[in-house]
């Protein structure tokens, strides 16, 4: 920053600082607002008279006697059984991350080390697959799944999410593996390792940062998915996102929109923690594909 080429004139500093501030408000304010509002009653968060009510909460005080209320959380988690969706989401995300990393490291390693032309074709096809809208694939699943009678169960959804995840995982891990010198596994094989031993005992230990980063993105894909989970899971097995979507229909009509607000905040919280701890990995993952171009 002491570099003269980077020093800004005063007006330009102000403009750029103002722009950053503007962007930060744009990015973060909606979440702050919703988290705050989820502890109020509906008459305050969606106030007819004055939006300031969401801050001061006169109706909340009138109805519950306190400044804040956990009624919305109680309603969604206990009454509407949101806790079950949380459990389902946990099962699905953990399984998806573990399975897709296992398949992805094996495949990505092979693609990075094979100089043959078909490795390129596989990557190209994977790119096309990655661009497929998920809902087009889902429309292909439904009929066969109904006939095989495997529709609606968690394992089915887990396998589908793993498969949909594969193209992305392969590309990312492939580019991470390319950054590890070939000499490493070749010298291990000269020392008597088989290819798999070289992969497991020599390459994977130095690959951890790449594996963690890719795992984060697999997690996000499984956690954030709406298309697959909403179409392939039965009512009892619903994960958080389709459950929230189902709150909107019937529950909103009953004047219980605050349940959905509380559920939304509950679903955002883990993501918040995730970014807090893994910010560096997420940033490096976003740029990993870019550098390789």
């Amino acid at each position, binding site marked *: 920053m002491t570099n003269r080429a980077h020093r800004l004139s005063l007006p330009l500093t102000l403009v750029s600082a103002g722009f950053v501030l503007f962007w930060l408000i744009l990015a973060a304010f909606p979440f702050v607002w919703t988290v705050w509002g989820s502890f109020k009653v509906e008459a305050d968060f969606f106030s007819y008279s004055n939006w300031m009510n969401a801050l001061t909460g006169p109706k909340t005080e009138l109805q519950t006697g306190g400044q804040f209320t956990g009624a919305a959380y109680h309603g969604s988690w206990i009454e509407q059984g949101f806790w079950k969706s949380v459990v389902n989401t946990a099962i699905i995300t953990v399984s998806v991350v573990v399975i897709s990393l296992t398949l992805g490291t094996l495949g990505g390693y092979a693609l990075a080390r094979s100089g043959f032309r078909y490795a390129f074709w596989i990557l190209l096809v994977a790119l*096309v697959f990655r661009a497929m809208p998920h809902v087009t694939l889902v429309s292909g699943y439904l009929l066969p799944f109904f006939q095989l009678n495997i529709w609606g169960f968690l394992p089915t959804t887990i396998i589908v999410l793993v*498969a949909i995840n594969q193209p992305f995982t392969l590309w990312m891990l492939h580019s991470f593996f390319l950054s590890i010198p070939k000499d490493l596994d070749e010298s291990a094989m000269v020392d008597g390792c088989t290819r798999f031993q070289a992969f497991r005992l020599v390459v994977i230990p130095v690959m951890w940062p790449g594996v963690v980063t890719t795992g984060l993105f697999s997690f996000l894909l499984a956690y954030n998915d709406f298309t697959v989970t909403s179409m392939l899971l039965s009512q009892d097995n619903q994960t958080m996102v389709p459950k929230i979507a189902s709150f909107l229909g019937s529950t909103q009509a009953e004047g219980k929109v605050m349940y*959905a607000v509380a559920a939304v905040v509950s679903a955002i919280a883990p993501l918040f923690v995730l970014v807090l701890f893994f*910010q560096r990995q997420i*940033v490096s993952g976003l740029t990993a594909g870019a550098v390789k171009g």
Partner: protein
Amino acid sequence: MPHRTFLAFILPSLAAMFIFIALPILSVAYQSLFVSHPRVTVEVETCGPFGCSVETRVDTEAMAELQRESPMGQFNGLGTYTNSGHLAFDDLAMIWASSPDWTTAAKSILNLPFYKALAFTLAFTFIVTPLVIVFGFFIALAVNAIPPLIKGPVIFLSLLPMIVTPLIGALVLFWMIDARGVIGATLQLVFNDPQLSLKASPALTWVVLFVYGVWHSAPFSFIVFYAGLQTVPKDTLESAMIDGASRWQRVRYVVLPHLMPLVTFVALMQLMDNFRVFEPIVGFSAAANATSLSYLIYSDLRAGDAPLFGSAAATSMLTIIGVVILLTPVLIRNWRNFNRKT
């Protein structure tokens, strides 16, 4: 690496992709040629204390029989593709013949469900993508200039719109733009129009969805460009300064060319992601004013008691063709790169 080892390593991953991505695409292609059986009805005469009445009922036995004979439904060829729910050739011909000029023809064409969805999908893809690139680039420039100490927290907050589940992000904004929410109420106050609603008019709904799209994806391009800015060669910047280049000229002639590969990368990713826009339409309950191709498929599959598999499959195939057209330049570029390398 010998072919056998390669195959052993990649087989699980390849099998997963084959069974759950390649096969479904084939299955969709096959499904799109069929429509569900028409209902077999029988007339049943029921006689009660108040006389007899004739009712038409669905003959479940005959339906089950038909279903067993051909479980895919009735063969329809390319009929589903050309019917009024999809490419609608007949309707197009009719509109063409009956419209006095271009604008009325365009207007009626955009009322056909498929073309309406296509129009929104393309508009979303080609309006949001450039905005995301430009907006992200300016955020990256601005963040690059702030003191290093607060960069961490700034990046943390910036990541949030992108990391949060698209449906949930859309809902959060949707509640805020509600007439009773903070942004909706403020806008009513600013424009002094108590009837102003961002959900009512099609044009405003489109704008809201575009704004959401930019809000959701700007962090991605910001992070990529920000990482790229760290690698801009300082020597070149300094020599440009010595040559008398202004700040703007340095950005325009040194920084931008250096970031060009990243711009292509972000554009590619954004085109792919924006073309399948779907969740925001559910989150903003915007289906009345704006539908996308993905949303059409979703609503076909969700249709009442009997999902319209044939119709959904036909839209899916048309969408896949769209994706392939969108990707062709990228595939050609990759192909050339690979050939140069080997």
